[in-house]
């Protein structure tokens, strides 16, 4: 049964990844291209380095923005779909009287907030040429640190909700756990260092559009996983779940 759920999770990740790619291609790529134009202008303004050799790009721009983008998004979305299915298997039946589709959507909302939204709020996505090359390791450390903290706090909020559930009921327990998560995230945001490397001349509209597109891609990804997995899992589970309740 869990193997079947995993297959459905990978499939949901595939479908969601294709949707997210379409969104990214239409709404994200224009700002990537605009950022690369800015990058080339900056490079042209620098005094020419006589020793520099004109490098042939390893992967052409059209390939990067189509097959490369699709492959990259699919790697993440299929991986997330698989993990999602396993988390669903842990959560299903422990969330209260929710159907498989409802449980899937709830889990996708939690995934979007803790995996995508919270890290994005502290360290938003940056287009090409808006950060310093030599801080890549530092910025990567910070990003994965906030990702790990956000996921850990999400798990903590979940445990708190389960603790409060018997005494306070589903609604109150969820509200208190949710508020606790928000307060804990706010404290972490205040403690962790800011990253502000964007050059003053970088076009502000490009930065804004890139970041909003980035958040939109993540939203499409999670919404797709939640909806597709919910309907696929519902076909196996609700039938089976009902019979299990009746037998109990």
């Amino acid at each position, binding site marked *: 049964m*869990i193997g079947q759920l995993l297959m459905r999770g990978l499939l949901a990740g595939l479908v969601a990844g294709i949707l997210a790619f379409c969104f990214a291609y239409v709404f994200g790529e224009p700002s990537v291209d605009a950022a690369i134009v800015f990058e080339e202008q900056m490079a042209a303004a620098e005094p020419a380095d006589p020793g520099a050799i004109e490098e042939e790009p*390893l992967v052409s721009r059209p390939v990067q923005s189509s097959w490369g983008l699709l*492959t990259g*998004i699919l790697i993440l979305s299929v991986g997330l779909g698989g993990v999602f299915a396993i988390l669903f298997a842990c959560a299903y*039946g422990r969330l209260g009287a929710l159907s498989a589709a409802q449980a899937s959507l709830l889990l996708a909302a939690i995934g979007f907030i803790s995996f995508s939204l919270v890290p994005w709020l502290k360290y938003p996505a940056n287009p090409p*040429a808006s950060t310093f090359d030599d801080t890549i390791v530092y910025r990567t450390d910070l990003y994965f640190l906030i990702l790990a903290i956000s996921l850990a706090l999400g798990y903590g909020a979940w445990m708190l909700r389960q603790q409060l559930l018997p005494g306070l009921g589903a609604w109150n327990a969820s509200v208190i756990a949710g508020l606790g998560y928000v307060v804990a995230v706010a404290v972490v945001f205040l403690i962790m260092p800011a990253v502000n490397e964007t050059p003053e001349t970088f076009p502000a509209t490009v930065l804004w559009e890139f970041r909003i597109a980035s958040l939109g891609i993540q939203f499409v990804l999670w919404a797709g996983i939640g909806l597709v997995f919910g309907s696929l899992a519902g076909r196996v589970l609700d039938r089976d779940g*009902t019979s299990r*309740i*009746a037998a109990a």
Partner: protein
Amino acid sequence: MSDNTTIPALAPQPFPLREVTPWAIFGLIIGLIALYFIGLEQGALALFEGATIHEFVHDARHLLGFPCH
């Protein structure tokens, strides 16, 4: 004593956690490998030489919010 005519508004039976554990380890490994290749390889860390993987998934790395250049 099963009575199939009434379906109570109860939570469905959860899977026993020890049944999920081996799958969870498997799923975690898939997830971490995916995260590594999209977020880190030939950026902050590198298993393979060169920059072809980085260049190929470059736009996805930026647009999915992972640090790059």
